[in-house]
């Protein structure tokens, strides 16, 4: 929530929810104070109040780590709204201190289109960041049409695909992002088609910032999320495709989840950014400014 619109009188501070006070005093809500970018650092995880702390996700879930990092990377969480859908991710996302629109399955990018435009009408002087965070099935299968059209319209919000390469929440059915040949529920003879090239589709649709990564480098995840949101704020659509393995359906032993992430990253999920010239110019500008401020100090 806005620190501008909500300015509690010091006398009433005591009665505000502890959550809110902690987020302002010891978390990412206030550390933007006078700065271009927030200063909570991934390397300080555990030392500050996070936007998301409790969740009912499976033990060892890589998606949970990734979602925590997304919230740390948000440049302005107190003016952000997350749009999600049915799937594993929303179990954690709905526990965050950022409003969460939980729509019908596959409607995320349409809802976000209307929400973002509505917020721009209502708050012409305050940028509100809209972030879609949904699973591979929710975006590339049932949400495909809305996803593609939001990109073709260059809607100014970020789409983050939590790609666990399976319908985890419904019990392990293959999705469009499952690799060819993989035997899963509803693919008893192995997945028929190839893993859909979501990044290629984003490129064709003219998405301004496209990134693929695995949660192996926490600082890189936070930086990528920040870049994607900043581009969506000022330039156009942005898309992050993140490998967030399902250790249950893919039978990855809990202690080996990160080992799997490193292996898959090396094998086929390497970090990649595709940035349009306009987005590059903008990012160079804001990142240079941030660096200059640092060196000035």
């Amino acid at each position: 929530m806005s620190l501008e619109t909500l300015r509690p009188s010091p006398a009433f501070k005591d009665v505000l929810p502890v959550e809110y006070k902690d987020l302002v005093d010891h978390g990412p809500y206030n550390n933007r104070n006078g700065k271009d970018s927030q200063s909570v650092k991934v390397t300080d995880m555990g030392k500050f109040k996070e936007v998301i702390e409790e969740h009912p996700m499976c033990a060892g879930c890589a998606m949970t780590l990734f979602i925590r990092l997304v919230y740390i990377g948000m440049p302005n969480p107190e003016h952000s709204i997350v749009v999600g859908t049915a799937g594993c991710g929303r179990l954690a996302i709905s526990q965050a201190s950022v409003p969460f629109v939980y729509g019908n399955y596959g409607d995320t990018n349409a809802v976000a289109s209307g929400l973002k435009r509505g917020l721009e009408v209502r708050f012409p002087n305050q940028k509100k960041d809209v972030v879609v965070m949904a699973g591979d099935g929710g975006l590339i299968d049932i949400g495909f049409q809305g996803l593609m059209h939001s990109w073709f319209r260059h809607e100014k919000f970020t789409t983050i695909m939590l790609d666990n390469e399976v319908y985890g929440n419904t019990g392990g059915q293959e999705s469009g992002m499952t690799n060819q040949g993989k035997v899963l529920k509803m693919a008893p003879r192995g997945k028929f088609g190839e893993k859909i090239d979501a990044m290629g589709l984003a490129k064709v649709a003219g998405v301004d910032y496209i990134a693929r990564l695995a949660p192996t480098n926490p600082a890189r995840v936070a930086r990528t999320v920040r870049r994607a949101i900043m581009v969506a704020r000022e330039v156009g659509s942005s898309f992050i495709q993140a490998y967030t393995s399902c250790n249950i359906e893919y039978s990855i032993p809990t202690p080996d989840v990160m080992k799997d992430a490193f292996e898959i990253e090396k094998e086929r999920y390497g970090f990649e950014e595709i940035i349009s010239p306009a987005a590059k110019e903008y990012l160079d500008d804001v990142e240079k400014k941030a660096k200059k401020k640092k060196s000035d100090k």
Partner: protein
Amino acid sequence: MANVVGSSVCRTAVDEGKPADWVPGGEKQTVVDPMKMFHELPREKQFITGSEAARESMRRANIDIAIAYPITPQSESMQQAGYLYDEGYIKEYYRAEEEIGTFSAISGASRAGVRSLTATSGPGLMRGLEAVSSWPGARTPIIMLNMCRVINTPLAIQPDNIEMSFLLNTGILMLHAENQQDFYDYPLAAIMASEQVDVTLPAVVSTDGFFVTHARGPVSITPEEYKLPPRDGWRSAVPAMDNENPPARLSRDAPIQKSNFISYHMHSSWQQEVFAAVERSAKYFRAYLGGLVEVVNPGAEDFIIASGCAVSQAREAVRQEGEKGRTVGLVKIKTIRPFPTEEIFEAVKGAKRILVPEFNQAGWLHKEVCSVLYGRTTGVIKNGPRVYGGMTMPTEMILEWLADFRKEVK
């Protein structure tokens, strides 16, 4: 240069091909109290189509955002919305990919706390029904104009209002416009009622396609320099999704689907509240529309209960019967949800014979009428007459049914 609209692509007047000193039409209008607009402002009579009446209604409705997909016969109305956007009466507008996308996007817009409008027709409504049926539970005030059209196979584009039956139990406010005049008045009333704090629900104004949308009729309209007050995103039964509300850990759309008794209780009380809000809207419609029903010839022994176009046909039947010295009563139902249970009962409690003419095969209005009069009146309720699949309902048909009815029930 200032951003002329809050568009997500940040357009300026010049980007949009307008002169730099362009003033959006909406900014030249003056906000007026809704009751004054509905009942006091002078009106000028125009001879226009239903779609044009909808356009004039939208012009005065202070719409922030309009999103729709073209479908016959609604497309003309949303083209009209496009012209209003171009003139600056609507702040944001786009043609969406299809109806699931349309109705999801408009729910996103409403969640932002702005006045949101869409329009559709039979098959389009069916395509987007999952999204539409989720609007009331999300407590999103939205205005939808619905131009009824056949939905069944074989494909046809004729008027038939069976699609309204699919909305009856969703928790959406439903109005049924009889003619072009209603299609001008009802959307304005529906917007104001739907945005009341104790209502906070979407509203659908349906009319029978082609008969109303494409045909001209006399419409008395208020001066275009007056518009409704804007939607106030802060006044709502639930907070807008704008991240402007404490406390911090706030998820309005929290998933309530874990199987335990608390989740069942939460969901059932949420549903109860939605349907209670529908009932609470009645007081606003009574004020705005001068009642949920219009009653002609109260106290008659023969009564016709109808909504939409069937009312016009029934009016003519009532007039012709009057010429022959026979008094026939008529109840025009303006709001299908909230359903005017007590008003209908009061009007027909002394009637012997009740006809319910409809433009659909299922007879959903007949079932509604029976359900509220059962055990309360002694009058016989006739199951018809009905036309469907695009047929018109000649007045003679109603008169023949009346004549037969009188022989059947003395």
